């Protein structure tokens, strides 16, 4: 036991060293970071050392981009900047600081047959929030009917979007829930596993991988990161017999370190994965973007596969046995550590996949994108019942629906508030969650 504890400690030291080593190795070989940065800035006119603060948008008439349209941004402090849309209808105005700007579309530069859509405010006032990029959409062309849709069709659209969002949350929630179920750890670093998937996919495609390969390799790398985490950190901690609260705080430290390592290499900008812009499709009267639909199908297929894995295979049975009672599982011949290791790998792969889908859903890849949905994942997991996988699925879908449907009435910048508030209310009345067991409540 003594020796085991000692080797556990040295294993932790190894992983810490690895962390620092990765840092310094990359300092000595800055080419990798530079490669990403080069890719990151190629769409902009010139690279800048500080994080760019921009107002940007894309002008389209239906599917056709509008070229050569002039946009002017002015601030009360006397700043004036302008941009002209390029072949793909894209325009970017760099601004010196976050603040309030008036954005004006020069109507004279629009094609004569494509006027600004009715009811579109021009000029309009934009105000920066916490992001460094501010998107401004001007709807152009008479075929765009602003806000004329009926309540029923809006609701249907929100429900579809909610399912898509909820299922991607569910993907990420499975890992969190499985880890909690088998080890009791509330893992605050799970959000960074989500970010990692998206950032890895972006970096790989920037290095010239075709999109499909980049996505697959990113998911595999996510699984590898999960393996390394459990091997270097969590397993040694379990061997030392660490209590759950210190492990939770360790996961917070890990989350901070990983988030800033990603920021260190990736920078504070928002980047897009290939084909982040997708055409709108009309299915049975509901307008949905192609990416949202693909995301919905992918998550559905993967979730069914995971469910089958858990219900039908030996590994699934072993996992459920460990979640139920680790000591009993060990006594009946299950290699508990092996099961937990697999849980980490599978959970991390699902988190990475969820991160890629989240990058398409938002859309955009940023260093803190995982942190943004971590609490929604927690909300889904808690709603369904901590530690129950199927509860996590149901809870996540409910959270996704709640977030999207609430935007009908709530301001978009408050859409996460509803879901978090409901989570607190659920804890008040049914703390074990919808599908949880009573005994889990302390």
């Amino acid at each position, binding site marked *: 036991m003594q020796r085991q504890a000692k080797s556990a400690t040295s294993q932790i030291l190894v992983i810490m060293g690895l962390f620092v080593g990765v840092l310094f190795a990359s300092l000595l070989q800055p080419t990798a970071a530079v490669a990403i940065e080069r890719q990151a800035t190629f769409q902009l006119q010139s690279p800048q050392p500080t994080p760019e603060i921009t107002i940007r948008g894309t002008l389209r008439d239906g599917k056709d981009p509008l070229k050569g349209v002039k946009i002017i941004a002015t601030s009360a402090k006397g700043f004036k900047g302008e941009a002209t849309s390029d072949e793909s209808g894209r325009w970017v105005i760099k601004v010196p600081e976050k603040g309030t700007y008036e954005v004006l579309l020069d109507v004279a530069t629009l094609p004569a047959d494509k006027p600004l859509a009715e009811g579109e405010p021009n000029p309009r006032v934009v105000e920066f929030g916490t992001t460094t990029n501010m998107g401004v959409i001007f709807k152009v062309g008479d075929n765009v009917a602003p806000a004329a849709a009926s309540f029923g069709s809006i609701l249907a659209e929100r429900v579809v979007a909610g399912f898509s969002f909820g299922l991607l949350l569910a993907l990420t929630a499975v890992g969190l829930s499985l880890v909690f179920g088998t080890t009791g750890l509330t893992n605050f670093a799970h959000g960074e596993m989500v970010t990692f998937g998206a950032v890895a996919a972006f970096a790989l495609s920037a290095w010239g991988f075709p999109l499909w390969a980049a996505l697959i390799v990113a998911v595999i790398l996510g699984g590898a990161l999960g393996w390394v985490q459990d091997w270097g950190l969590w397993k040694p901690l379990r061997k030392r017999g660490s209590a759950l*609260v210190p492990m939770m705080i360790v996961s917070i*430290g890990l989350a901070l*370190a*990983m988030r800033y390592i990603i920021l260190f290499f990736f920078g504070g900008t928002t980047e897009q994965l290939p084909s982040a812009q997708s055409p709108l499709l009309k299915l049975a009267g509901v307008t949905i973007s192609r990416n949202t639909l693909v995301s919905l199908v992918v998550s559905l297929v993967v979730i069914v596969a995971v469910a089958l894995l858990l219900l039908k295979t030996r590994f699934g049975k072993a996992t459920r046995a460990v979640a139920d009672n680790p000591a009993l599982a060990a006594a009946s011949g299950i290699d508990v550590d092996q099961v937990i290791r697999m849980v980490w790998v599978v959970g991390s792969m699902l988190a990475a996949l969820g991160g890629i889908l989240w990058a398409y859903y938002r859309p955009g890849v940023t260093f803190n994108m995982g*942190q943004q949905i971590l609490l929604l994942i927690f909300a889904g997991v808690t709603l369904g019942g901590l530690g129950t996988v199927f509860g996590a699925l149901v809870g996540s879908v409910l959270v996704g629906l709640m977030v999207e449907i609430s935007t009908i009435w709530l301001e978009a910048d408050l859409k996460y508030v509803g879901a978090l508030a409901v*989570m*607190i209310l659920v804890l008040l009345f049914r703390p074990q969650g919808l599908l949880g067991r009573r005994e889990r409540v302390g």
Partner: protein
Amino acid sequence: MDFATIFTNALTQIVSPITASYALAALGLAVHFGYAGLLNFGQAGFMAIGAYGFAISTLTFGAPLPVALLAAILASVAFALVLGIPTLRLRADYLAIVTIAAAEIVRYVVTTNSLTHLTGSANGLATFERGFYDLNPFPPGNYQVGPLQFNDRTLWITIIAWALVLLCASIVWGLMRSPWGRVLKGIREDEHAVRSLGKNVFVYKMEALIIGGIFGSLAGILFTLPTGAVQPANYGTELTFFLWTALLLGGMATVFGSVVGAMIFWVVLSLTQGILLGLIESGAITFLTSIQAGQLRYILVGIALMVLMIFRPQGILGNKKELAFS
């Protein structure tokens, strides 16, 4: 590299009112977690409530300083009640998730555009500190204390901030030696044992949550007074995690641990920043930009938090026997 400047900067951090504000908020966490065993991951929310309560009552309602202070304190008491009633009966990790979620709700609400007239949304609020600086007894001018430079404004806020920290620390010191404090520590060790002695555990926990929350809201006000501005982006979950790092550095179940922890936290941040920037300027480091140097420090914060928790969970001043967890 100018070591004198780097060390003076680090020294300035030790006494800066921001450090005092961290120390006070971490002291609140010490009451919550170190003494009562409550996992509060929403201290940033308490700080935001204090800062906004103070700013809004001054700006929107024109309240004088004492009324604004009282409003901020009452708001944080209300927040503690709202948080505590559903969660204090549940297991510790539920409280963690609920407090972090509630703090984020506070941040979303003060950031939303629909309340711009009240909260200034993402830009926040400013110029609410007049009432505080009107009380400043120091005549305008520059003051030299040892190697440190102050003007009348910074001297006033620094003195008040540390006086407040000292006052709150002595309150905690006294409370934890009272019968009330002994019951609280008993709850931390074994809730059921205390309950079987006929104590109302829920009420004790709630009182601890409220006291720590009030410290948090006062810290939130201190945090805004030096610049006279409050911005919602400062009150994210990372603020809470930095406070935890400061608390665990010093020792969670100690009165002065949070103060020492906050000082070390800021001195180390300042020193690494100064040294890294100095090396970059002198050309010794060419592979880092100054922005990356800033980010590198926070990677170290994360690693420090992990290392501390694994190898020295009782912190620098703490006693390993008195740990909130075994």
